[in-house]
């Protein structure tokens, strides 16, 4: 397999291969998908490590994310700057974690960050309420939402501080085989 591509240096490709779950071909394919979102912004030559970040609106227009109720949080969690604009690094990172080859505890870690809306490293009741609303498209009344959140915290909170920490969340995930 010849190194005919000129987009990345071999060291860059090696680094990407080591840090994500993708093969060389898949990394190149993902690069082209990234570039297709905005061909005029993304250069074809990444050997000089250009600092290009695609805006949030373009990222969430991708068919994989378009209908996901959590697309805003996903973009925010994976982008370096926290505002949803993603560089190629963030893009590859996001797809690596969401791919089927990533282990469950890695996905659980990022799922926790996605559900943590206020970024305080805890899923408190307001985070849960926002999650429930996104999951059910505002079809439940506020009392029902509140009741459901109370039950969740009651069941999963192991250290009884009224909110879920990462350990509580991972403890729960281990026992749920349907988690994707």
């Amino acid at each position, binding site marked *: 397999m010849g190194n005919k591509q000129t987009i990345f240096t071999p060291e860059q490709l090696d680094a990407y291969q080591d840090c994500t779950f993708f093969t060389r*071909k898949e990394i190149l394919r993902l690069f082209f998908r990234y570039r297709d979102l905005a061909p005029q912004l993304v250069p074809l030559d990444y050997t000089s490590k250009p600092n290009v970040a695609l805006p949030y609106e373009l990222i969430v227009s991708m068919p994989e994310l378009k209908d996901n109720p959590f697309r805003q949080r996903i973009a925010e969690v994976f982008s370096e700057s926290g505002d949803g604009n993603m560089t190629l*690094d963030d893009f590859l990172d996001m797809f690596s974690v969401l791919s089927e080859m990533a282990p469950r505890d890695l996905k659980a870690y990022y799922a926790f960050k996605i559900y943590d809306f206020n970024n305080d490293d805890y899923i408190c009741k307001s985070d849960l309420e926002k999650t429930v609303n996104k*999951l059910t498209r505002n079809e439940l009344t506020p009392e029902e939402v509140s009741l459901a959140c109370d*039950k*969740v915290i009651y*069941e999963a909170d192991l250290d009884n501080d009224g909110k879920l920490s990462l350990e509580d969340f991972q403890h729960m995930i281990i*026992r749920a*085989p349907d988690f*994707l």
Partner: protein
Amino acid sequence: IWIYHYFYAEEKLVGNLVSLSKHDRIKAFQKMPESMRRKREIRNKVLREITKKSKGRGIHCGCCTQCLRRAKVSLRRFRNGLAECFHRLNFWHKILKVIGGEFGTSVLSYFIFLKWLLNFNIFSFLINFGFITVPQFVAAEPNNLSFTGLELLTGAGYFQQTVLYYGFYTNATISKTKIDASYNMQLAYIFTVGMYFVICLLILFFSIAKSICRNFINLQVYSGNASKLLCTWDFNITNEKAVKLKQRNLSTQIKEDLAEENKEALNFSLTERIVRILIHLASWAASLGTAVAACAGVYFLSVNNLELFMKGHKKDLESQAAMLVLPVITSLLNAFIPFFYSWLGNMEKLQNPKSKIYVTIARNLILKISIIGILCYYWLTVVAASESQCWETLIGQDIYRFVLVDFIFCLLGSFFGEFLRRIIGTTVCVSLGVPEFDIGRSVLDLIYAQTLTWIGILFSPLLPGIQMVSFAIVFYVKKVSLMQNCQPPRKAWRAAQMTTFFMFLLFFPSLAGVLSVIAVTVWR
């Protein structure tokens, strides 16, 4: 102080990573929950440490470490190339992703199961073809019978003298006069089939063990509203309609759960409870009675079938077509009795919707197991004791007919069950709506077909090849039917656990039953 701790932790991390082997190090990098930029920094630090250490280790070992390093690099490149090759062999990957995106993981589990069974058949076909059929071609006898189109359906006539059936395979040891090697056909036959089943057994056993470990060991007792909320979102879905449907389901489920909490447990009076128990007993009696009646019918028909075959002239087209009656009737029974069972289930009004699914699946399973059991009994006792010159070929023909008719009925079922139902549901009787894809029944049909194939391997070595083609066709037909006609399932279907359950079903009644059949056959 915080910055000091941060750097100290990073030094420890780098130190740990340097001490791992290259393979473990890459795995550790992939699993690190950090951003890409941080990972690259850590990786550069680790690589710098490693080159420092290797330089410090002295130059007198230069030659052999160089060779070793080059060997390792080329081995790694070779392994990557091989991995990419295998990835290309992963057929249908894109179709499966599309199905998962439109319909969710539960329907996807059916198609993954189908693909898994297909792999079994491909493996069996390759082994049988390579070890048994190819040597047979060398010692083949010419075929004098004529070929009419009906043979494709009945499997008799012309096909009787081909490699399709056991009876054709020579008993002797094939030997080429030029080379001194000889190929013992008998041993080859028994060993090939035996090895295949042993390998199947092992594969199934390990898959089930892995599956149970992953899905059942840590099962929590308090079946988790928390997990229902936070873990059931299926991130695979990409279709907008499916997403809306899933959201509506989730909200309905949450509403139901909350309502259940508030409602007090229904206390039935004594008479009501007795009535309910009586209804349960009656429906179980009805379902078991139906199964017994079906078995008796099948047995009677099959004995009739054998008489017809022995009496009638073998070349008579009509009598050959009449031999198709048994498989058709069996498939009809298999197709219509489950409707009766689901009607019974609806009538019973069980409290828990999940137990309704389990009860229906249990009843269907009992029906199918008893039908296969009766057929095996008929084949092994009645046919084997008959006076025809090769009873194994007769059984092979019978199984061929069964497999073929089952395949045809599967296609017909898809046509009627889904296509026509959709047309009826959208034009004539709009309240019925679009049909859902019935996962439980479809998987049981697959297991039934695979059991028939496994029973037939000893009598007709090329049967897995036929089943392979039929599974491939069924995959495409079901996929098209799914996309055009069905909607995503409404009730929650715990895909991971049900898949384990189905694999277990494949293992225990199916494979174990087939092995006992083989044992009895070989003993005879």
